């Protein structure tokens, strides 16, 4: 069977039942493709075994880049390219450069991190998402299990595991 095409879906109504179910389903040896929710469920990334997002590191690096660019730009323009005495101060009046440096640090950190988020999560206006169930963005949580990666268990067995761990419905979904 081909991967990433045929799924068994467990539909859950309640986020706490879902959290328990993820542990139970994984405990019985089923590999979960992904869980889809209408809102962020706290702690689900831990039970699914996801690593902590590295986006804060991206934000930090972009922030450092912003600080560096802002300072280099201001020193170059005010001290090297066209030195001028303003208010009797040194050409490179370092304390005066702090506000712009701070703003550019925040600007680059924010835009850099959001850019990385967009790319890593494939968010773009022309993206065509695979929608497992239209109720995911309304009121249902859906656990998707790829039949191909769980071939040894079989569809019925997976359905039973989902039912016994609290799914209110078990559906099948295939993509072209």
């Amino acid at each position, binding site marked *: 069977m081909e991967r990433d095409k045929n799924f068994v879906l467990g539909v859950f109504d309640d986020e706490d039942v879902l959290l328990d179910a993820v542990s139970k389903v994984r405990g019985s040896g089923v590999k979960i493709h992904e869980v889809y*929710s209408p*809102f962020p469920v706290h702690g689900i990334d831990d039970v699914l075994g996801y690593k902590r997002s590295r*986006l804060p590191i991206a934000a930090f690096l972009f922030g450092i880049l912003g600080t560096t660019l802002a300072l280099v730009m201001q020193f170059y323009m005010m001290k090297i390219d066209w030195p001028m005495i303003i208010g009797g101060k040194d050409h490179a009046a370092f304390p005066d450069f702090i506000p712009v440096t701070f703003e550019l640090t925040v600007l680059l950190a924010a835009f850099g991190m959001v850019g990385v988020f967009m790319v890593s999560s494939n968010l773009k206006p022309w993206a065509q998402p695979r929608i497992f169930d239209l109720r995911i963005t309304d009121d249902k949580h859906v656990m998707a299990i790829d039949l191909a990666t769980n071939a040894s268990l079989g569809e019925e067995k997976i359905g039973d595991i989902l039912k016994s761990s609290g799914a209110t419905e078990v559906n099948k979904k295939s993509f072209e």
Partner: protein
Amino acid sequence: MQVTSSVREPLITGGKTLKDVTHDVSRQVEGKPTLGWILGLLVAVGALLLGSLALVATLWEGIGMWGLNKTIGWAWDITNFVWWVGIGHAGTLISAVLLLFRQKWRMAINRAAEAMTIFAVICAAMFPIIHMGRPWLGAYWALPLPNTFGSLWVNFNSPLLWDVFAISTYFSVSLVFWYIGLIPDFATIRDRATGLRKTIYGALSFGWDGAAKTWSRYESVALILAGLATPLVLSVHTIVSFDFATSVIPGWHTTIFPPYFVAGAIFSGFAMVLTLMIITRKVFKLEDYITIGHIELMNIVIIITGSIVGIAYITEFFIAWYSGVAAEQYAFINRAFGPYWWAYWSMMTCNVISPQLFWFKKIRTSIVATFILSLVVNIGMWFERFVIIVTSLHRDFLPSSWAMFYPTLSDIGVYLFTFGLFFTLFLLFAKFFPVINMAEVKSIVKSSSEKVNK
């Protein structure tokens, strides 16, 4: 297991389920516009068009169309600029600072407050741009662009330039923060829609699918953006206050300005949020989400920041006397008892005395009283900026050049233009965007609802 606190008031009333949240918020995006909305939009667009006559006249003839003179070089323009920027502080404060403090009541109001922030900052930015006189050349004066004068760069020692960076960073980061929050809600509307609406909201939702991995990243982005936006929101009005505080004008040259301006900004921002939310909750029947509890909490923020502002006014006066500088002392006596005494005492009444009424629980939980006081606060905050700017300038160092400021039709018209722009944008937002962050509210339905949905 459900635990409902017997101490805390529920954040959502009416026993709402997840489905109710989707329905209650999506309904006005999907329904036909109401008569009230159409009338409101007509009034707003009318003000925009009427005001644009003054705007065009100002751009065509130059800022000589305004009531400025040799002594008073800054008046309504900068007053309006600071006033709008101040209003634009509440949104990011609510969504960023209250997120860091884990204040869940923010979730029902942050979307509309952030929209208000973005629109208010657009209105604010109009004024310095118009004040340039020839805004089509403005990019060379405001941004470090290479030019044929050498390159002669912008002056990084100037607080006016810091303001350019502060306001544009604040605007763009707030816009991104707001949009990231909108993506999951656009996906909700997409999945309920068919035809053209599905295509449009599909594009707006950026292909959101609600995967746990994406939510985990989303939460991390929201937290870091909040951490970045918190010092940012404080920096913006600090830098706006530097425009005055770093000068040597008596009445402006004080170190109290940054915290005083920031408190004033939060004060006026929350007042504007209340004005808008009281109408929005009524018109869109969202009383179960934006409850009296929310209004009361915002009123408490108004008491605190209003009192900080009051203390700042008194401190300024004391320091002017204590400094022993005759010019400084005169500036403040002139403020309170000079020809602009009416502006000073309007400011004192509206900003210092009226918010103290919120100490009474009856008043801070009354919708009518809150609505009236929210307008009073915004009038007071406009007068605060007018008092600081005009009364400090109008009697300068040479008595022969003392003058008064009289606004012209162009001054009034450009101000009207920004009102038209603000309300047009807000009404379009209220109709076509989900006014409440559905995804965030859904995450607290179970723990903070009046009735547990099970």
